[in-house]
């Protein structure tokens, strides 16, 4: 596997506050990676260091085999910055054209490329619009469009679907899914469903430290686990409900107010019948569920891991 991002003992402080602490990570080409963590965990700071917006206090970074902000990264690395604004007073199409020119397109090709990326976020009609006349969601999509100019090898998306309506968010997810075989994505998001849907690996930051770098498939193994979202609070000794099923290995209850139940069991020849037995136990205790998922949900798993 080719290493696309490598950091070693990366630290960053703002004044006295240490925002990132000794982050060492390796990301391989081709694996889309989700970056999650609470607000203030250091996600945007890590992105900013990778792109050369910020300089680290210590540690090393290598992106696509070179230093951040190296001229050789032009056109190979793209980013959707979280809070950057376009220049007021200059039409959107013109700004995208200029960015394409900076990436090496000729003046004529830059116009074509700018039109292409506006098309992929379904905003072709806004070519002649000024940024200050557009909604937040539209500006977000245009910012996403600029990240797809040319043929980048690595795209960093900071909160790509935050603030978008469901239809636009779906369009962005579809776009990422479609491009995944040619581009490596690193996606920072609070939306864990997006991460589960789009990424193969997950990085969990907690108070500036990288606590986990896991394969999502391992975390959300579909076998031997059933996760329920219940309609009412669970009784205290909920594990007793399943005492008559010997294949049940453990039962986990969500925290107060979560109404979550996770049942782990040993695999057998007939897991389907076992699942029916589990449902019968719930029905016998008059416990109704709203949702049943085979395996564990990433959101639950991450919540557990980040506490």
């Amino acid at each position, binding site marked *: 596997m080719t290493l696309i991002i490598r950091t070693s003992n990366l630290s960053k402080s703002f004044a006295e506050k240490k925002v990132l602490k000794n982050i060492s990570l390796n990301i391989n080409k081709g694996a889309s990676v989700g970056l999650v963590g609470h607000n203030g965990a250091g996600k945007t700071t890590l992105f900013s260091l990778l792109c050369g917006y910020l300089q680290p206090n210590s540690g090393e970074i290598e992106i696509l085999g070179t230093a951040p*902000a190296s001229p050789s990264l032009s056109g190979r690395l793209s980013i959707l910055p979280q809070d950057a604004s376009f220049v007021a007073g200059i039409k959107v199409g013109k700004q995208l054209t200029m960015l394409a020119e900076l990436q090496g397109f000729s003046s004529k090709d830059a116009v074509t490329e700018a039109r292409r990326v506006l098309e992929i976020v379904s905003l072709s009609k806004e070519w002649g619009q000024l940024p200050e006349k557009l909604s937040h969601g539209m500006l977000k999509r245009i910012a996403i469009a600029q990240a797809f100019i040319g043929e980048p090898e690595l795209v960093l998306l900071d909160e790509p679907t935050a603030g978008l309506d469901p239809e636009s968010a779906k369009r962005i997810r579809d776009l990422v899914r479609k491009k995944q075989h040619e581009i490596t994505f690193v996606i920072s998001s609070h939306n864990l469903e997006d991460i589960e849907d789009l990424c193969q690996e997950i990085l969990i930051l907690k108070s500036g430290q990288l606590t986990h770098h896991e394969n999502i498939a391992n975390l959300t193994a579909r076998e031997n686990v059933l996760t329920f979202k219940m309609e009412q609070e669970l009784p205290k000794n909920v594990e007793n409900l399943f005492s008559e099923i010997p294949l049940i290995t453990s039962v986990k209850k969500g925290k107060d107010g979560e109404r979550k139940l996770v049942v782990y069991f040993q695999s057998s020849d007939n897991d389907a019948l076992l699942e029916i037995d589990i449902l019968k136990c719930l029905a016998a205790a008059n416990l109704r569920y709203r949702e049943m998922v085979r395996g564990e949900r990433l959101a639950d798993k991450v919540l557990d891991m980040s506490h």
Partner: protein
Amino acid sequence: MSISNSSLRVRQVVILIKQDIQRTLQGPHGQLFLIFFALFWFWFLWQSSGGIAQSFSASGNQSNEAWLLSWVFSLLFDGDQRVLFVEHPATLSLYYVIAISTMPVFVLLAASNQTASDIGSKYLRFIIPRCTRMEIYIARFVGASIIVNGSYLLITIAAAILSGAIDPDTTWSSLISYGLQITLSILFYSLPFVAIMALCSASIGSASLSALTGTSVYSIITLSVSFIAFRWPDVEIAGYLVPSVTKPLHLSLNFAELSQAGVLSLVFVLFFAGLGWRTFSKRDI
């Protein structure tokens, strides 16, 4: 670890300069400068069309007409510059003296938004993956210099045409050569002020604050230098803290002194723009 942000590709710089000029011409900050600048010089040309400049070349008695311009000029006028009115077209000389004297005000305003608002709005985050900080810094410096000097060039042409029309015994060839001299002198005199604002704008993420800081700091230093010059006349070195020390050299229009002014201007540019680059290359974007 240091980021390799000091490479320089001419194509990137040219693209950024084009965008910077377009933004200045279309944006509120640039338009404010252009309106202010145009109004001031329109007023000057209007006042000068009555032939006030000839009164300076003739006897030093100012005409009663255009009294406001005469009053402004009396504040700026140094007896040493009277030779300009005798040896060169008077109206163009009057424009030149006023242009050099008022330049800090206009340039500190015009060049205040080089990297400032883009740092504040984080627009540079779209650009950084595509070009180096050095390319951005140089492009913004050159863009601001083009706006400033382009504006002065237009007024110089207008003043030269007016001078040709109203000053007696003036030939177009003398106007052109004198106009070119003035243009070059304005270019060299303006660059250190653009460099001061490159430093301010790299340090502050707001064009308005950058303009305010630049003018305030410059005013304080100029007043301090004037005070030192008044209190301790032997301490001449203090005058070299501000680029306006080259003003008398520029106004002499003597080749040796103009060359000296050019060298001094370049030293100022290297000093202030160098400090600005040091700030910009290391700052968080």
